[in-house]
């Protein structure tokens, strides 16, 4: 999965968790929490959805790597290699 696809994957997961949020204009270098109302429980759901959809494991110590979309791309890039995007699951 390339950069754009990883961002789409995360945006789609956020849409599942918080259907009312507009995810199309999220800045990639600003903390997700500062742009939309995500609490720690929602954050856990991003991790759980990554595991469910892509089989990607994110240990609790690494949750902080997913704070921004850029962070997600950097951290998930290697883990998502060769996987195909699933949206609207």
């Amino acid at each position: 999965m390339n950069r754009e696809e990883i961002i789409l994957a995360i945006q789609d997961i956020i849409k599942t968790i918080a259907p009312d949020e507009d995810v199309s204009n999220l800045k990639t270098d600003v903390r997700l929490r500062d742009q939309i109302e995500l609490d720690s429980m929602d954050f856990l759901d991003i991790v759980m959805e990554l595991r469910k959809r892509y089989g990607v494991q994110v240990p609790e110590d690494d949750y902080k790597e997913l704070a921004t979309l850029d962070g997600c791309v950097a951290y998930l890039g290697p883990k998502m290699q060769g996987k195909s995007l699933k949206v609207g699951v």
Partner: protein
Amino acid sequence: MTADRYDALVIGAGMSGLAAGIRLAQFGRRVAILERHALWGGLNSFYKRGGRRFDSGLHALTNFARPESKTAPLSRVLRQLRLRFDDLHLGEQGRSRLHLADVRLDFSNDFALLEAEVARAFPAQRTQFASFVRAVREAEPFTTVDPSASGRAFLREHLTDEDLVEALMLPLCWYGSAREGDVDAYQAIILFRAIFLEGLARPRGGIKPLLDLLVARYKAEGGELRTHHGVESVLRDSRGAARGVRLDSGDELLSDRILSSAGYVETRNLCGESSAPADQGRLSFVETQRVLSQPSASIGALHTLVFFSDSLRPAWRRPEEPVDLSNGVIACSDNYAGNEIAPRGLMRVTCLANPETWCAYDEAEYRTQKDRWEDAICAAAAPYAADPRPLTTQVDCFTPRTITHYTGHTGGTVYGSPRKRLDGDSGVPNVHLIGTDQGFVGIVGALMSGISIANRHALVAQ
């Protein structure tokens, strides 16, 4: 004997069990909810009498919040369970009242009403009340408040008029305190927010549509709901850790994650462990429900809820007599907006009761006492709302005996053990408490309990 392996087993299909089940099933865990009874809901269930459906709990859904308030507990619960606010069809309360002797304070889902009422009835406490409310808003009840601290002491830190303290304590006790004579300070904060700063509502149709929604959601994610499947005991390995359960049928189900909503004492019993006498809850209720031929408001019962007491120092404790008529709660369900009960009314009155007395009666005596006290409760409530008796078309009444039967809670406790375990620790490895004895109360609280313990001990941990 058959053995079957699960990622997690949930004991009890109440609000907390269903919420935990949804969370686990949603993320692909193999999970079964085991419920001894034919129906789900636990304390918040429903039953039919004379062709009419009655709710066993649900005077009110506290924590009402509109969907735009995204950090409110209700909104967070809905997101976690992937439910939509509109699916709940919540009808908000009208006006409700705290009525202790000659003190009357009205409140509604607009907090400004309570502020104005406090300013009217306790003008000298205006500033103190504002500082109290600020403290409630800013508190972090789970991290900074000592779990055994006194709620009354917390109120007294800000409020100097004892009459006001006791008036505010009354609903906090009635809607969630398992502790005699007081409420835990962290609970007081959460309950004040849930009742006054957030608000009260009722799902249209009562508890059943909400339960249907949760069960449908759970099943859609592949969760197994097994009714008539009581847990007889928890199986443990040589180190004492849980490894599964034995059912009443003798069948065994295996899992090293057990989430139990049975209660602290009851869960430890299932594990073959004892608990301290101080862990046993002592508070139970008698409640009557009167179906009326006219709306409650037409006979002068204008409030949605009335927390009443004949004195300014209500006793929140197990009474000596079968029922304590001196204080209680009146809920006029047909005073919620958009309810389906109209044009008929439904008035419910709840009072504290002595579970030992109620459980010791033989069958004939039980019926006699039930009729006698049911009538006395209606008479006691009449001065605070209206006398429902002349307009009654149907009556149903439940007692500590009924509660014990349907919830399995020893002593018919409604709010469980007075010593809560916020971390869900049952003292038995692999067994985690959810629901009442984990310490979150009310419908939204119970859902949050199941969610947070499932997240922490069965999703993150694995």
